[in-house]
Every structure is written in C-alpha cells, then in structure tokens.
C-alpha cells in the first residue's frame, strides 16, 4: 500500500466496488473503524459481508491512523451470516421433518 496515490482506483471491496481512494478519503474524514468505513462507503456491505475485505480495510485504517488492528476490527456480526433470500428466511421446512 506504499503507492497510495497511484493506486487510488484499486478496488478494495469487490462486492460494492469501493476503491482505495474512497476508503482513504473516508478515513481522513474521521471514519476510523471498519464499521465506520462501512457506513460511510458501503465497503463490506455486499454479498460477502466483508468476509474478504474487512481485514484489508482494518490494515488500511491502521496504517493511515496508527491505531492497532484490534482497535479498528469489528467484534460483532449481524445475522444472517450468509446471504439468504427473504423467502428462505420465511419459509419453513415441512411438518414431517419437525416430527423427527
């Protein structure tokens, strides 16, 4: 991440197509945890829910601000932890299964 300026167009969150430049700008505006950056940019709000990018974003924040990774990483998660359709969340399995 040493060539920050020339790499500003590089995607960090592929699901929501958020670039390094957008994340750096958010950090400079004062969004200095992974959760904050998510709210400001949507990074980590897509299909994978930050499973691949949240660690990268934590590292970028840490390098930019000098905070430790532990301070900036999320410690809580929301359900469902997998992307599901509303239909699947609402539809219940057949009664025979419930009789097991």
């Amino acid at each position, binding site marked *: *991440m*040493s*060539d920050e300026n020339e*790499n500003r*167009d*590089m*995607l*960090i969150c*592929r699901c929501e197509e958020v670039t*390094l430049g957008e994340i750096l700008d958010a950090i400079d505006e004062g969004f200095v945890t992974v959760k904050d950056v998510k709210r400001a940019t949507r990074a980590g709000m897509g299909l994978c*829910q930050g*499973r*691949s*990018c949240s*660690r*990268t974003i934590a590292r970028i924040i840490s390098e930019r601000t000098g905070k430790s*990774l*532990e301070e900036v*990483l999320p*410690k*809580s*998660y*929301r*359900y*469902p*932890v*997998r992307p*599901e*359709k509303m*239909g*699947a*969340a*609402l*539809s*219940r*399995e057949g*009664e025979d*299964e*419930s009789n*097991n």
Partner: protein
Amino acid sequence: MKRLKRDIVVIGSGPAGLCAAIEAARSGAAVLLVDENAKIGGQLFKQIHKFFGSADHRAGVRGIDIGEQLLRQAEELAVEVWLNCEACGIFDEKTVWMVRDKEHSVAVEAQRIIIATGAVENSINFPGWTLPGVMGAGAAQTMINIHRVLPGHRVLMVGSGNVGVIVSYQLLQAGATVAAIVEAAPNLGGYGVHTAKVRRAGVPFYTSHTVKEARGNGHVERAVLVKLDSQWNQVPGSEFEVEVDTICIATGLTPAVELAFGSGCRPFNSPPLGGLVPVHDRMMKSSIDSIYIAGDVSGVEEASTAMEEGRIAGLSAAHSLGTITDQMFAERLEQLQHNVDALRSGMFGQKRREAKDAIVRSYGVER
C-alpha cells in the same frame, strides 16, 4: 416456528467438526452435523499429500484417506448429517437458525453447539488483483484436486507457508508450471519437507519480494514483482516481470468467527493464530457455557490439531450433558490433550502453543 431438538449441533464438517461429531456420538450424545457445502469433510479431501508429524497422529497418511476413515466412523455411529445447510445465526445461546438448500429455514434447539466453521483465505491487494486469474491458493487446490481442472498453465504463488508450497507442488503434479514463489518475509515459511520438494523441482523462490501489480488484457498475463527492504517498503527500481496467467494468493487465513461473535462469544486478539478468535478454555468451551469451538475458528493451525481439538470439544460437550462418567471423561481428555500438546511441541509448534496458552489464560482471568 416449530423447533427441532438435538443434544449437540456441530456447525462445519471439516476435520474439527467431523471429529467433534464422532467423539460426541461415541460418548452417547445425539449429534446433528451440518455443513453449507454439498459434501462432507471441508478441506480434508483436497489434501492429497501425506501429513507431517508423528506416527501417533497418522503422519504419513494422506489427508484424503484420513477423511475416508472419519466418514466411515461417522456413518457407523449414525451421526445425522445435513449438507447444503447454512447456519445463519445462533439465538439465545442455543437455537441455531439454518437455511437448507437455499430454500427454507429450520430452527434447531441444541443443548450444546460446537462451532467449527474454519477459516477464510486472506486477500492481498495490488493493482490488477481483481483480474481473472488471481485467486486464493485454496481455490486453485479445489480446482485441481476436486474438480480436476487446471486454473492456468504458468502460476505465480504468493506466500511460501505450507499452503503456498503444498499447493505449488500439487500444481506441478497436475501439469502446471510454477514460475516463482514470492515471500514478503526474509525467510521461507513452510515446513522443510514440503519446501524442499518444490525447490528440487526447480521452482525459483524470491524472499523479501512481493507482487506489485498484475497486468493483462481481461486476464492475468504478467506479474510485476518488487523487492522489499527490511521495513517492508518496496525498493524503487527493483521491479521485474514474470509471465504468468495465474496468481495464487497464500498469505494466511482468518478465523471464520461471524457465528461465534454474533452469538456473543468473547473475542481475544491472537495475531499468531490469525487475529480475533473466541476465547476458550482447554476443554474448547467458549465464554458461553453452551457453545464450544474447535479447529481454525479457534485459532488457525493445521488439520491435525483441528482434529484433536474437535475430539476435545465433542467429548467435553457430551460430558457436560452427562452422557459419560467423570472418570471416562478425565481419562479420554488426558489422552486427547496429550495428543494436541505433542502437535504443538518442537520448533514448529512452540509459537502456536504459547499463543493458545495465552487464549486459555485470558479465559480464566476474566471469567
């Protein structure tokens, strides 16, 4: 919603979950083992190489053969298995919400839950990292060893740890050329037995180097490598290109902690074991009495340690339900803990042992 009930629900059927289910079932508990994939076994069936370690841990046996043995044991013990079943949440410390076949929801009330969700591969970012042809080393391994498809013909491996060198060797066996292995650290990370095989095959290693960029028109065609100084900064002017169509990333794993932390398990930061992990004791119990954890989610190690931890979790969870006597529990636990300690001894295991001890100490302090 009408609820099903089970003694123990094990989430994830990799080495840890599978062994947890077997041990718990053997100890007399009614076990439901669930996995989001279509097949049981997690990463175990991709491991076509012989495991390293002592004879007690079946070193010299291929991962895939260990997997077959475990499958037979699970069948003999009549472990109930649900595949294509995603555990989406844990409520009230005991109810697991699952979505089966991406279609419908089931809530299972478990007296004990064992979370064995494993880990996910770390990504690294460089211009071009989203080009087709850049993938996790684990993905490449799945392609060659499960689907029997070559991901590409000339591969750059990023990372020289065990995953990097083992997958490199398997890519060679599958007919690909490994153009180079780059390692950001000044020293190689993998076990000598695995590293030497790749070295003997003529693969060049570049320590203190990383990928600066992937280039290509719609697909990886070249990688630009760059030297790193002792402060991990890129050395200007040291760039050079290697012609590759595939870049595999093997830069470590992060514990898959979403379910554990979502359910309220207390986190502990363990950089040597992959970052934030749920605090747990020697019996693999989390900070929540009804939730146990095992395998990479409790700190990234190896399949062999994951299996022993799984057995400990399965045994402890079953014992806490009173399915075995205290004496049986104590005897078996001593044996399993001896096994796992042996795996964490020696020059390779010491660091992991210290890291695990720190987690266990933290459990005791804050409880």
